[in-house]
């Protein structure tokens, strides 16, 4: 089925100041949009650090949110994988799991969600708009990607016959400083080992609201609410970023080869908080 002719490619701002990205808007077009770059740098950064220029010219926002894990055992049809073949087991748990998740994992699955854009959208409290035989629905971003649990083959809250029509970022209080940091094995054209999306609203010298999420570490785009809670109501300062980032890896369950991600995640979050929030 080819949906590419549907009129779902628009990039628009809502009257309230939110951003609506049509499901068929191209990654390259969203990243280059001057209004997007001005209002939500974290979205533009996350997109430009994804894939390659050719792929960003082809790939869509809806497709990016729907992309599947890069777990090599999921891609290898000769390996056990509960996501690909429910009940067959998980070769990654005892296999080479350096790139796998440390957060949100289950006995059945430790695969990492690969999207950068989704990490930015998680930090911004986005919503997914769908349309299907049962009508239109709006799904909070935090509820859209499903934790693997015992059913890792079920990855999204998308019903049979349903289509994503748009992703909406709600209006945020201004000024909003935001950005995305991606740490990987090579400088470009690579998936994240760890990443951090940060959006801060600072007024009167106090952090009034904070959106922080991490990539490369979770089975779904991973919202860091404990980090956010530590930031809100406090004044930006050098020591604050480290103290908040210390909470980034709460609940982490490292595997044999990815223990380094626990500390790397904390330091990635701390660095990006400092970049966005300022201070030494």
């Amino acid at each position, binding site marked *: 089925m*080819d949906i590419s002719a549907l009129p779902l490619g628009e990039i628009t701002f809502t009257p309230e100041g939110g951003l609506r990205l049509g499901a068929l808007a191209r990654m390259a077009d969203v990243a280059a949009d001057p209004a997007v770059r001005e209002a939500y740098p974290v979205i533009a950064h996350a997109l430009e650090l994804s*894939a390659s*220029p050719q*792929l960003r*010219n*082809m790939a869509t926002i809806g497709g990016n949110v729907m992309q*599947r894990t890069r777990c090599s055992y999921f891609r290898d049809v000769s390996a056990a994988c509960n996501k690909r073949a429910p009940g067959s087991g998980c070769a990654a748990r005892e296999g080479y799991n350096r790139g796998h998740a440390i957060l949100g994992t289950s006995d059945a699955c430790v695969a990492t969600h690969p999207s950068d854009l989704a990490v930015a959208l998680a930090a911004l409290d986005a919503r997914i708009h769908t349309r299907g035989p049962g009508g239109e629905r709006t799904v909070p971003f935090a509820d859209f990607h499903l934790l693997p649990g015992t059913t890792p083959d079920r990855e999204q809250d*998308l019903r049979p016959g349903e289509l994503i029509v748009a992703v909406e970022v709600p209006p945020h209080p201004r000024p909003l400083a935001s950005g995305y940091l991606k740490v990987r094995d090579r400088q*470009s054209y690579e998936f994240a080992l760890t990443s951090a999306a940060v959006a801060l609203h600072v007024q009167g010298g106090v952090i009034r609201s904070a959106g922080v999420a991490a990539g490369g570490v979770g089975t779904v785009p991973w919202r860091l609410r404990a980090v956010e809670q530590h930031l809100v109501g406090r004044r930006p300062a050098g020591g604050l970023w480290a103290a908040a980032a210390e909470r980034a890896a709460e609940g982490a369950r490292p595997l044999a080869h990815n223990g380094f991600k626990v500390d790397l995640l904390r330091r990635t979050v701390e660095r990006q908080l400092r970049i966005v929030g300022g201070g030494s």
Partner: protein
Amino acid sequence: MSSSQPVSGDPPPDASPWHVSRRTFLVVTGVAAGGVAVGLAVVDAAAPDAGTVARVALAVNGEPVVVEVDSRTSLLDLLREHLELPGTKKGCDAGACGACTVHVDGRRVLSCLTLAVRLEGADVVTIEGLAPAGGALHPLQAAFIEQDALQCGYCTPGQIMSGVGCIQERHTGSAEEIREWMSGNLCRCGCYVKIVRAVEQAAGEV
């Protein structure tokens, strides 16, 4: 995504999609966006609306062409196997190396991940069409020669098509910026330094 299998009892499929028309196919159709199979139907590929073989009218290097293609055929295979344009190279055939880069409607894309059936009305430019036949080379082609920006040459058509896109997108402000915006094109010979120099040179001339 669609997949097709011949029903048992039929002769094995011919390698050429031109010979599929009398076979009956079991077609499983899924909604790509949902990843969920929603329909199962037995269709006769001989019927023109069966969806297995489609007629597509597009322009390739400025020439209008009408082709009948299997719905699974990539633009890369259409170019190389059906239109006798082998300049576009098949490296990984999985979107990882950039060797198959062409321009569709003025944008650099990977032809191995582009289904030909989607290209109705599209304007495709390949390495063969970058410069007029018998005329001067494109400045980036000339720069690749002058800078000696290749060894085996297999990635070169993709590098050049990508580099032309990089220049058109104005991402040539520095060697570092060129490296980032050319990162989708791998070169196993390791000619990156000279490839960046060639793009820098051509960016100053275009």
